[in-house]
């Protein structure tokens, strides 16, 4: 079956621009997570959705970052006034539920480069 998909796979933008990154979770998965992976590091948590609501956004680095999931399926991560330090791979993961037994399945990521 289809896994988690993310678009675009690569995004190059200029400092100060606005970008949107999209995540399509596995069908029926209610929990959705965004992570950011900088070069040479492990992924770091950004935000978690249960259904339509952001249940935990404690990982968002500042108010330039925002994410939505209006219908409880597709999610969009939005970054305003991009900075060179935002360059990273942005990963999305989904799980059937939020329980501790649930496995998080990851998408291939969006590689963002801010020039």
């Amino acid at each position, binding site marked *: 079956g289809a896994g988690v998909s993310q678009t675009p796979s690569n995004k190059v933008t200029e400092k100060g621009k606005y970008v949107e990154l999209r995540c399509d979770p596995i069908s029926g998965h209610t929990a959705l*997570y965004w*992570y950011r992976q900088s070069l040479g590091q*492990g992924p770091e*948590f950004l935000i978690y959705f249960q259904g339509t609501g952001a249940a*935990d956004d404690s990982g968002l680095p500042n108010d330039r970052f925002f994410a939505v999931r209006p219908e409880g399926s597709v999610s969009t991560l939005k970054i305003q006034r991009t900075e060179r330090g935002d360059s990273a791979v942005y*990963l999305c*993961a989904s799980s059937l539920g939020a329980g501790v037994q649930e496995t998080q399945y990851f998408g291939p990521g969006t590689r963002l480069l801010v020039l």
Partner: protein
Amino acid sequence: AQSVTQLDSHVSVSEGTPVLLRCNYSSSYSPSLFWYVQHPNKGLQLLLKYTSAATLVKGINGFEAEFKKSETSFHLTKPSAHMSDAAEYFCVVRLNQAGTALIFGKGTTLSVSS
């Protein structure tokens, strides 16, 4: 707070020899522990997970890991390396609490030579 330390940033082995990737964790509560693998240009894939059941956990592709509470370790092993095992491996900890995020180590790059 939860954290993981992967003790080696890079491990090199020959094909057919054993693999050992070391991980120590820190957690205030009884955690869930995972190993994920990331092949170049591919998404993260779950290798195995420990969630307070059997301490010796078997995963895919012949990998296994043992949870040792006394040593706060969760080392990943495989008896015989294959060329296709070359990848980045992440040790991951999670609170045993619904909806919590995964906390990743910095990763270990495994190289396999013929």
